[in-house]
């Protein structure tokens, strides 16, 4: 029982990061209809920028992360401008176009930071809490807390600000939104910048748990995308549930099947998606004739 909860806790803290990645995917997808496979690479850029501020510029972690989010959001604005012709296009083109953009980002990262990775020491050094025999790393708690705050802030922004409401309107019908005077291009750009900022947050939070390298975004990106699909693509609660779900499944798969954790995770994922294609809080599409 103790090891069960231990596995659960570790799954939840990775799951919180996946949830953040999934949220970025979902926000961009629902606002502009772009399935952004460069998201993992954006996350990697965010992790590198944060670790550079933290390790080289010696900024405290709490300052390095927002700074990295700001830089990465700016990068996101550039990417959005380049990929704008792909928005609302057919999926094959988006897929390969955004993968291409991700490749460019990875190459840039190699040119700036070299292809060897770097480890980031945990910014929280206090001893782990022990609750009923289960060790809970304090940093894991910090991650879960930060993710919860970010989610709440995003929800408030989308539901209680004018700009957020405009973005929701674009998500529902971009033509109608244009007709009522919403600047769709600007709304999309903001969505993409927020998505990139969330990716930077996820990347910098994950960097003490993983290892910062040019390819760190590949696996996080795929897991986060799977999380978004599992929860229901385009849905905010779906991203949270899906992220935690993928994190927990992966954690238990690693516990029970060791090396085969990816195999088990994705087979389980496939079965779940087959059972409920629209995810838990899914977008509903009705075929109309």
């Amino acid at each position, binding site marked *: 029982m103790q090891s069960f909860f231990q596995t659960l806790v570790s799954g939840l803290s990775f799951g919180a990061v996946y949830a953040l990645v999934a949220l970025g995917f979902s926000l961009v997808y629902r606002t502009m209809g772009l399935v952004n496979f460069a998201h993992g690479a954006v996350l990697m850029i965010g992790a590198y920028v944060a670790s550079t501020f933290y390790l080289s510029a010696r900024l405290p972690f709490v300052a390095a992360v927002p700074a990295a989010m700001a830089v990465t959001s700016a990068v996101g604005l550039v990417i959005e401008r380049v990929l704008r012709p792909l928005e609302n296009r057919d999926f094959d083109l988006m897929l*390969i176009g955004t993968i291409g953009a991700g490749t460019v980002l990875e190459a840039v990262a190699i040119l700036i930071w070299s292809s060897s990775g770097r480890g980031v020491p945990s910014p929280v050094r206090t001893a782990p809490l022990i609750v009923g025999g289960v060790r809970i790393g304090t940093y894991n708690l910090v991650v879960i807390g930060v993710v919860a705050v970010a989610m709440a802030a995003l929800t408030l922004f989308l539901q209680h600000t004018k700009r957020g409401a405009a973005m929701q309107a674009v998500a529902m019908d971009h033509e109608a939104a244009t007709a009522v005077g919403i600047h769709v291009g600007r709304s999309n750009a903001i969505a993409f910048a927020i998505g990139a900022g969330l990716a930077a947050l996820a990347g910098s939070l994950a960097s003490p748990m993983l290892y910062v390298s040019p390819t760190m975004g*590949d696996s996080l990106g*795929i897991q986060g995308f*799977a999380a978004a*699909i599992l929860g229901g*693509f385009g849905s905010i609660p779906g991203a949270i549930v899906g992220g935690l779900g993928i994190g927990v499944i992966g954690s238990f798969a690693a516990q029970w099947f060791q090396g085969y954790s990816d195999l088990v995770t994705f087979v389980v994922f496939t079965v779940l*998606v087959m059972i409920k294609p629209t995810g838990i809080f899914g977008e509903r599409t009705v075929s109309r*004739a």
Partner: protein
Amino acid sequence: MSTVLTPFRVRLLGLAVLAVVAWLLPYRLNIYWISVADTALLFALLAIGMGLVMGIAGQVNLAQIAFFGVGAYATAILTTHDGYGFWVAALLAMVAAVLAGLVAGVPALRIQSHYLGIVTLGLAVAFVDWITNAPVTGGDSGISGIPTPPLFGIDLTSQYLYYYLELVVLALGLLFGLFVVRTPLGRRMRAMRDDALAAGAAGAEIGVLRMMAFGLASVYGGAAGVLYAGLIHYVAPETFSIADMFLLLAMVIIGGRQSLAGCVIGAVGLTVAQQELTNLAAYAQLGYGVVVVAVVVFAPAGLVGIPARLRRRRVRSVAALEAFQPSMLGGAEGRAEASAAAVAVPKGRRFPPWLQAGRAPRRLPSRRGGDSRRGSKPAERSEALARRKTQRGLGAEGRGAVPGVLLSVSGLVMRFRGVTALDDVSLEVRAGEILGVVGPNGSGKTTLFNVISGLYRPSGGSVRFAGRSIAGARSYRISQLGIARTFQHLRLFRHLTVLDNVLVSMDRTRSWWSWRYICWPFGVWRYDHALRSRALALLRGFGLAGFASALPAELPYGIQRRLEIARALASSPRLLLLDEPAAGLNGDEQRQLAGIVRAIRDSGVTVMIIEHNMGLVMSLCERVVVLDSGAVIASGEPGEVARDPAVLEAYLGKSALPGLPVPEASP
């Protein structure tokens, strides 16, 4: 004629030149470049498989690299571990790859687009995970010592000679792929890619087609894997990584996913470029990423799409100029002294005058009768057989069916999560009549059609067509039984030519008919040939022959509407459902439409028509059914129905004053 260079001949000539170049190439290559060429050919084979499943069938498949891996690993394990000979192992490896393909294809039955993308990608990740961990695959270090395939004493340890083996396999694979794309199976796949719903309504078995597409892709993946194992003698997980999957994807998209030749060009080009730049890793990666983004943004159809795009632009202007010739439009009414000769035929095809005379479409559907038995060629026989089966089914209509009633709907209920779109609808369609279905917007007319044609499964009630229950049957099944439909908002296959649009629907074979592709390709070719001449005759009847090789989007709206009717009629239906066929047509076109519909009825096809244009309904229909809020509120002769107080109330509202103009109903 013999000196004319048709596009087909140009292409043939190009292929011949390419074949000669490919054959002579090794003489100019050193040992390093021949190994690059060997790799390029393998990727080309993989890319053709990708092109078939993604570009032709529209199924996002990010597991192609895993099919490749299954082929290679199965060969490796069976030769080194189990001691099988190379070719026996190769055969078994192909079987394993196809099984993997079918497994990866199962999710496509439920999900599409990005969902399918992430699931297939996840399966590829799972495969890599398995080969890096399982003892039988040698883990990280992989499997070495795979033997060289023996081949009639040819020494295939030579990379030069292996090149020719690969070249032959690639050429066969490419030819077979092109053959599939241009004949019934590939045409259905392309139709499914463009619009799965309309393809289903035209008789294509969507689920089976999706599985076949994955199966085809895995055949190419498996073959490439077998050849890879025989070439390199060593397999390890890094060859089948997700990065290589994306590289393969880039090859297909950059080359042009809808053209198999484009896939080959992309594969060869990117393999060579990658080798050239291998010393400048990061810059090469940067350049590769930039090129991918640029191609996707500026040339979405890939490199091969660029010339076609330019050419297409020219054709479009010609077709648009000729479209409004009145003589064109008379053809379908059977009284035009049509001069289709005056119409530019984009492919340079010209018809002798006796073929251009406006033959009424009424003659064409009647092929269903004894006429069809005339074509006793083996290829056509199965089709005739299928039809006879249908007729036998229809022969049983006496039991429980009122004579003369073709379709009877009773107590039909359709609910969408609390919204009741159809509420206890009962109606009958008599054989040989034109039945109008009218009602205000949102009254459930289109929902009724969707249930009859199998797009929706009704929540309750029954639908009987010619004595057999069809409620809840799949749309392809209903199409095969003899119900065809058009759509309120046009649903033509966008990337198929006008001729192909009609051919998809005219092809009445079932999916299992496709075994001929393996065992008797000539039969496929002959069947396709016969189908083409019938389709052209149908197009001539509709006055559309001049547009045979145009794309639907290049045609004026009115002509697209007519094409949809032609497509529906191509399936030789007994019942034709027309959903607002006059929407968006001008007065002239509406009159022509009325003529077409009457001609269709006169040819023995029963017609059910949803229409808002009351003038058209009054003049065309023998009987009219009025729907309001999902229920039948009146039915009878048009004149009676128009005076029915319930109908007036439905259209004008309770408080409407007499003499108030009827609000224009628009979709």
